């Protein structure tokens, strides 16, 4: 039999991990990415990667990591794959160490570990404050090695448009577009791995990179793949508000001792320095004495919201609170947090070693995603998914420093599973007509779009989508607002038909490419909004004041959305969560668990 041919779409940590496993097992890979893979969004991860290596004499175990992850995710994740991930994490750290990641060290030369949110252990390995960048580079280097040896062919500056499905709805390849020549082409494969990251752009401004539109996931959802737990969106408690995006201020700032506070007195006009200790309100430390500033992200986010909007104590009346590192000495800060402090300094202009940072919650991570089984397989035969684009590992809320490990573990699982599937695949007996048909379908979409002669600017439609989603579909959710949001998205979809591309050229036409992504964003946004409307409870990142408690009797279930093509809208079903290993218990961070 010929060597299995696998296509991987997306060159972040998950995609590259899959590529490495496939190439190592002798398979050939075509790797597609919108940007050169070294520029993928994984580089933005700052704080670290979790693994219970127990190098600090605290008695940490992978079982404890597993429990923290399930508990942090409010029991919504299926438990067996999460356990396997936590068990595999220490060996993943070792491998990254062997690949040359410049992890911080202890005096003895061992890996150093820091504390992160949602755990009481030092479990997070880190490379300065640019851990994601360092990890991505290590994998990128290994992939470059396989590329030099001829096992990997990169298609950078190509955008995935759709899967090519045969008459039996089995994946036989992909249809993609060259972002420079605008050529639409099909590529054959035996199995496809999707590793295209989060959906931040649906919320307009987020901490995600520009390419994180969710367009690929949405295209597959519209082709029949199920989408799991779409309503679970993590809003990071500490982001730096900006004109073009929200920049992340890593949880490691709190892991290293950063304290969140506001002046106790409403409308306090004094400079932060002249506010004495006794007149500062360290509300996280007061409300959650056990975890203090290191409560999980959803808890910290809601607390900041409450202080700003209910207590009306935002700094200068603005939606911002202080994140203060000024009590820590400069040398320590430089050694452990230089990368993230540099970001603040560069983009705001103040030095956080001297002045407390001003931060506010921002959309950060997509817990939901393409539904996959325990082998990373989506509901379309031959299509696998790994990384942030799938829903499997984080339940209703992701713990800090668990994303990097889930991306790498997911890719390491998906790669070999895809190879196994490809080896057992029945060759398509029928004609190759489905390749031509899919190419034609995509070219027709393109020609409709380019000749569309309306009055709507795609970038302005996008801003409206982002504002609506951020207002109604993030930290606090009301059913009335969610229904309005869905109606607004339907309106935007209607207006999309009257789009006007001021650029009609057929070379590197960025507004054309963006408009294609925008359509897919709109379709997927409905899954998020409607999924949120259906879940009448509060769990993890999903919070409804009208239903403030977790409701296991009715909602300890995975939301599964699928696309009803005739009606052009999502349909939903519920699936039981596998809680076979840890019995669900109330999730509280104001006391020991």
């Amino acid at each position, binding site marked *: 039999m010929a060597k299995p041919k696998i296509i991987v779409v997306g060159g972040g940590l998950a995609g590259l991990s899959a590529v*490495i*496993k496939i190439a*190592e097992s002798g398979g050939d890979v075509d790797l597609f990415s919108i*940007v*050169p893979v*070294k*520029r*993928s*969004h994984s*580089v*933005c991860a700052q704080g670290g990667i979790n693994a219970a290596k127990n190098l600090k004499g605290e008695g940490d175990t992978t079982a404890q990591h597993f429990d923290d992850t399930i508990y942090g995710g409010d029991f919504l994740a299926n438990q067996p794959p999460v356990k396997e991930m936590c068990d595999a994490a220490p060996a993943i750290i*070792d*491998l990254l*160490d*062997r*690949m*040359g*990641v*410049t*992890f*911080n*060290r*202890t*005096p*003895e*030369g*061992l890996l150093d570990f820091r504390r992160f949110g949602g755990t009481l252990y030092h479990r997070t390995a880190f*490379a*300065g404050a*640019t851990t994601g*960048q360092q990890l991505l580079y290590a994998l990128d*280097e*290994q992939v*470059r*090695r396989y590329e*030099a040896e001829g096992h990997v062919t990169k298609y950078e500056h190509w955008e995935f448009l759709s899967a090519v499905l045969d008459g039996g709805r089995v994946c036989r390849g992909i249809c993609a577009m060259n972002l*420079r020549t605008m050529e639409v082409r099909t590529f054959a494969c035996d199995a496809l791995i999707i590793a295209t990251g989060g959906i931040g752009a649906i919320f307009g401004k987020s901490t995600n*990179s*520009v*390419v994180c539109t969710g367009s690929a996931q949405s295209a597959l959802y519209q082709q029949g793949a199920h989408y799991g737990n779409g309503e679970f969106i993590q809003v990071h408690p500490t982001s730096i508000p*900006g*004109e*073009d*995006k929200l*920049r*992340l201020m890593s949880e490691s700032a709190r892991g290293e001792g950063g304290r969140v506070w506001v002046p106790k007195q409403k409308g306090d006009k004094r400079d932060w320095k002249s506010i004495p200790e006794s007149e500062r309100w360290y509300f996280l430390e007061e409300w959650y004495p056990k975890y203090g500033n290191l409560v999980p992200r959803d808890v910290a986010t809601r607390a900041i919201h409450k202080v700003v909007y209910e207590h009306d104590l935002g700094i200068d009346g603005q939606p911002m609170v202080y994140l203060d590192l000024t009590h820590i000495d400069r040398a320590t800060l430089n050694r452990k947090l230089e*990368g993230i402090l540099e*970001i603040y300094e*560069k*983009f705001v202009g103040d030095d956080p070693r001297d002045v407390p940072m001003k931060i506010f919650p921002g959309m950060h991570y997509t817990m939901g995603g393409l539904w996959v089984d325990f082998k990373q397989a989506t509901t379309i035969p031959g299509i696998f998914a790994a990384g942030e684009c799938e829903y499997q590992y984080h339940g209703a809320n992701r713990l800090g420093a668990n994303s990097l490990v889930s991306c790498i573990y997911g890719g390491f699982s998906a790669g070999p599973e895809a190879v196994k599937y490809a080896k057992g695949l029945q060759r398509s007996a029928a004609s190759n007509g489905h390749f031509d048909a899919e190419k034609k379908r995509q070219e027709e979409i393109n020609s409709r779009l380019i000749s569309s002669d309306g009055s709507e600017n795609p*970038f*302005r439609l996008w*801003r409206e989508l982002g504002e609506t989603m951020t207002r109604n579909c993030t930290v606090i959710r009301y059913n009335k607002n969610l229904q309005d949001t869905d109606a607004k998205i339907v309106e935007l979809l209607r207006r999309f038909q009257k789009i006007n591309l*001021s*650029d009609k*050229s057929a*070379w*590197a*036409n960025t*507004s054309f490419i963006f408009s294609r992504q925008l359509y897919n964003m709109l379709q997927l946004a409905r899954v998020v909004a409607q999924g949120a409307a259906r879940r009448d409870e509060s769990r993890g990142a999903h919070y409804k004041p009208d239903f403030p408690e977790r409701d296991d009797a009715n909602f300890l279930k995975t939301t599964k959305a699928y696309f009803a093509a005739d009606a052009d809208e999502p349909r939903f079903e519920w699936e039981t969560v596998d809680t076979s290993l840890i019995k669900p218990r109330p999730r509280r961070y104001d006391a020991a668990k």
Partner: protein
Amino acid sequence: MVGDKKKTVEIHIKRRTSPKEEPRWEEFSLPWKPGMNVISAMMDIAANPVTQDGKTTTPIAYDSNCLEEICGSCAMLINGKAKMACSALIDKLEQPIKIEPLSKFPVVRDLAVDRSVLFENLKKVKAWVPVDGTYDLGSGPRQTPSKQEQNYPLSRCISCTICMEVCPQFNEDTGFVGAAAISQVALFNDHPTGAALKEERLHALMGDGGIHECGYAQNCVHSCPKEIPLTKSISRVSGDVMKQAFKDFFTT
């Protein structure tokens, strides 16, 4: 308020619809907002693509991704200096702000350029650690914190190619490999396992376009947005290349 003093931002952008076309300048006048940077200005143009004299135009093509100066995408010439557009704050730039694509790389469209030469160079110098495999082989080699502190800055290179853009020696005549790739050689040669490929890397830096093309202008180290000690890397590797050449001479 500051906004009253500077109500608009004036930006001139050098544009080209395709590589074949002659470049032309377009001028824009945008409403000023607090905290603007060059990227947010271009986002505003995309939402309202009209030039200063009221002519409808097309959104600007440019490379970008993270907007946090860590993906390395958005390098361009801003008021004549090679910079990352995401961290170029409008309030710190003299107006009219002149924006051009990098000059040493083929233009794709407007401000987007093709910088694949750097990734090819990284292949040439084998910038990786040759691990045996991804199966569980236990932990990596121990390293002192001081070693980590020496190498971590080198591993923060974002492949923006600004060091190559500003280098007088980086051009078609010399084929010079550039500071970024040389600094990666310094990083990997210093890794206990990476050192296995040290000789191959040093050989890759001999001959045409090799490390001897460096003229020590030091523009690279002064322009690097990540403040990587590039000239230090170049001297370290340069010494090793000389030693290697000497060794080669007596062993062949």
